[in-house]
């Protein structure tokens, strides 16, 4: 492999995982934009999405280890999206909503608690070991420009692009999106204008968690394994992506996700994969230091 | 004014994005006087205070503090550095430490006048820390008596009435032995009786040589106590002078009193 090929290959691999980060980052950024909470449990919702998919695939796979058809994968994505959305909704309703007026710190600590509960519940149900996720049947791959392209990568790009465009449309072109933006700007004023703030927050959790669920299934199928620990690290990276793009900013989360994936892919190719995880945290620290509002974020004033 | 100026603003300008909150505001505050800044809502009064106390940094202009020989520039200094130079302030929407008691709140005011560090807290046998904490305690006690809040010493600040909170905040600012006091609407929300007490108190402070810069809405407070009045409107100074002169100024009547007369 020539240097150029290695570069392109890492670029492609990085962008693929970056698309997944972007899907998860959207949930962080939407929730933060609306209630200024770092939803620490969001990474777990992503991970549980993967397990939802896994359970569904288990029903369809003729024997363990068999591949799944594209139809089953699509069904898995839908089930995971629905399941994760519902889970996110329930978490907000039962854990965060009672603390809406409490100090931010209480909500953040609660979120850490929720994250622990979800992680360990999954561990108790599915076990602590890596679980094998069936791969896509008849998924071809091709070599072009000396780079190995797989159909799964194409699928990840297609699905995430579709969802991101859809979300963009919802937020900027529909009445629902308008209420969401209104609540993000000034919840009190929005309420006075007759917008049900609680409903908008609930919908935000539904959408954000659903996207994370889809990301989970894609992640699982792409890497062929899933573990109850995966949510924590991937979630943190997605959060980094959201901060990188400018937290609270939806296009920012997409750009941040892709960029972080890229940096990580190149870092893994040229440094060593052990240091891969340091890259994400290093980026996080650097962004917060140099440009805390992120790449696309607006200046955030002191909300007194 | 022939007196020596303590605070000197020269062409101070502050913008927020496209909005100019202060445009080229200049005036002086003489030592030992009470100067009031008045103006309608949104005139830029609190922004002015934030620029002086270092909470905001003006884009242009100079702010000098101190007597001629030892004048420091305040622009670019952090709030804590400015507090150290001898400027204390209160806030329009009272910012007490609600969880802490009245006494503790006032003790935090003595922070700039004391020096005990980490080691003094750990090493209990240094005389300095001991004397210092006695001095601070004494100071807080005297201020509480003077402002008639000594009975509330152990109450958390949150639990006090509005008027009481204003007095605690004033005591906290005074506990730092400032050369100059910035008061942001100290009479807001006070009863008639409390208001009269405040005016008497401000006059007494001036007698003791303290310089006061006051933002106030209520003309019944401003006019009797002020030596000098500065009028802001839409971020610009439209007039300054003695209370009597300002009251007769046509532009002021139009911009401010005219509105009030409606």
């Amino acid at each position, binding site marked *: 492999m020539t240097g150029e090929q290695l570069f392109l290959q890492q670029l492609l691999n990085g962008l693929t995982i970056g698309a997944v980060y972007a899907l998860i980052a959207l949930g962080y950024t939407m929730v933060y934009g609306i209630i200024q909470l770092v939803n620490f449990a969001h990474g777990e919702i992503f991970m549980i999405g993967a397990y939802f998919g896994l359970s569904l695939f288990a029903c369809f796979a003729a024997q363990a280890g068999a591949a799944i058809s594209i139809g089953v994968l699509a069904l898995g994505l839908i089930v995971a999206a629905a399941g994760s959305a519902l889970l996110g909704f329930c978490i907000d309703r039962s854990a965060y909503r009672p603390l809406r007026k409490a100090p931010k710190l209480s909500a953040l600590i609660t979120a850490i608690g929720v994250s622990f509960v979800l992680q360990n519940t999954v561990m108790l149900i599915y076990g602590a070991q890596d679980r094998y996720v069936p791969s896509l049947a008849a998924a071809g791959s091709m070599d072009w420009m000396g780079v190995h392209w797989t159909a799964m990568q194409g699928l990840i790009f297609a699905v995430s692009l579709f969802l991101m465009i859809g979300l963009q449309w919802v937020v900027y072109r529909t009445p629902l999106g308008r209420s969401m933006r209104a609540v993000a700007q000034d919840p009190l004023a929005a309420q006075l204008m007759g917008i049900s703030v609680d409903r908008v927050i609930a919908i935000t959790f539904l959408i954000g968690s659903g996207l994370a669920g889809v990301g989970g299934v894609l992640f699982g199928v792409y890497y062929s394994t899933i573990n109850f620990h995966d949510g924590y690290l991937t979630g943190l990276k997605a959060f980094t992506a959201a901060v990188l793009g400018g937290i609270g900013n939806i296009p920012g989360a997409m750009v941040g996700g892709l960029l972080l994936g890229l940096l990580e892919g190149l870092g893994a190719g040229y440094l060593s994969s*052990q240091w891969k995880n340091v890259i994400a945290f290093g980026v996080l620290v650097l962004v917060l230091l140099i440009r805390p509002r992120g790449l696309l974020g607006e200046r955030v004033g002191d909300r007194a | 004014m022939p007196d020596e100026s303590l605070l000197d603003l020269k062409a101070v300008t502050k913008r927020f994005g496209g909005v100019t909150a202060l445009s080229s505001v200049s005036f002086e505050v003489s030592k030992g006087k009470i100067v009031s800044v008045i103006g309608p809502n949104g005139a830029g009064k609190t922004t002015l205070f934030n620029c002086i106390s270092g909470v905001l940094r003006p884009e242009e202009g100079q702010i000098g503090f101190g007597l001629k020989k030892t004048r420091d520039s305040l622009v670019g200094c952090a709030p804590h550095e400015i507090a150290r130079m001898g400027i204390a302030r209160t806030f329009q929407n009272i910012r007490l430490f609600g969880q802490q008691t009245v006494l503790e709140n006032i003790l935090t005011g003595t922070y700039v006048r004391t020096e005990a560090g980490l080691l003094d807290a750990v090493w209990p046998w240094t005389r300095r820390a001991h004397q210092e904490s006695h001095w601070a305690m004494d100071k807080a006690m005297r201020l509480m008596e003077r402002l008639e809040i000594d009975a509330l010493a152990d109450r958390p600040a949150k639990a006090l009435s509005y008027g009481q909170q204003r007095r605690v905040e004033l005591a906290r600012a005074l506990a730092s032995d400032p050369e100059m006091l910035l008061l942001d609407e100290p009479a807001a929300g006070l009863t008639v009786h409390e208001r009269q007490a405040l005016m008497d108190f401000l006059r007494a402070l001036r007698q003791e040589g303290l310089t006061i810069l006051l933002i106030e809405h209520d003309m019944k407070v401003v006019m009797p106590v002020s030596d000098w009045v500065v009028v802001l409107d839409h971020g610009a100074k439209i007039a300054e002078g003695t209370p009597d002169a300002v009251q007769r100024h046509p532009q002021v009547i139009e911009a401010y009193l005219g509105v009030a007369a409606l």
Partner: protein
Amino acid sequence: MKKQRRDWMPWTFLILAVLPFFPFNSYQIDVMANAALYALLALGLNVIVGFAGLLHLGYAAFFAIGAYACAFLNLNLGYPFWICLPVSAAVAGAAAVLLGLPVIRVRGDYLAIVTLGFGEIVRIVVTNLEPWTGGPNGLMGIGHPMIGRFNFGVDSRPYYWLLTALLALTAWICSRLRRSRIGLAWAAMKEDELAAGCLGMDTTRLKLMALGVGGAVAGMAGSVFAAKQGTVTPDSFDFIVSVMILSMVILGGLGSVRGAIVGAVILSITPELLREFAVYRMLIFGLLMIVLMRVRPQGLFGASSLKRVLHAR
């Protein structure tokens, strides 16, 4: 001034000191020594989170730095434990200040995530710097402490006493700190940073002080841990350890010295009592955090001022 709240100290520590004379088996003594270690860590984190209000999610990193510093000094330079102890504390304190410098201006929830990131970076670095840290296998053969000819050895009893002594010292220092000029400034800054700044408090400096003190306490705990175990490995300093220590501080009540100790004792001994439910341990931690924030956010011994306010109205 707040009432003297230190009268509990002499009695408590006296009782703790004589505990090992009762017929406990060596496993039980070991559990007690561990509880004391966690109590020490909880006191240190309490300075950062409870006193200064900085939500720190990477505290285990300072514990790790202390432990590795002690191991390194002992194995490579042959220093005895009693020199390693203060040096490790100083190294961890300095590391806490240095890692704090760049991020101290970041506020609230961002700070929480950045400190978490730093915690992970420290762990990854330790795992990958094989020549100095032994990589994932860690360092082995760290010398036990000696007093004259007496070697602490592998029995937990002497470590228990050592930890209890350090705990007593730290608790005494913490309660003095809280009522000192600096402690008052921390409390003010925690509530309203802007107002604190306008009162002449250099909040950056104050925050770094809190990090330094907290880091030093963790370093001290780390070096005792290293000397007691004889080995250090990176997995002892997982994110979960940071969260566990945080849970202890929160359970006890942010800012309360007594609370941090009681919280640590409860949360380190309960799992041992419920050994058959060991798999549920982290689940219980999570649930506890959620329930506490809902029902009693001020913890067991948290600022009673919340209650006082309710009664005053």
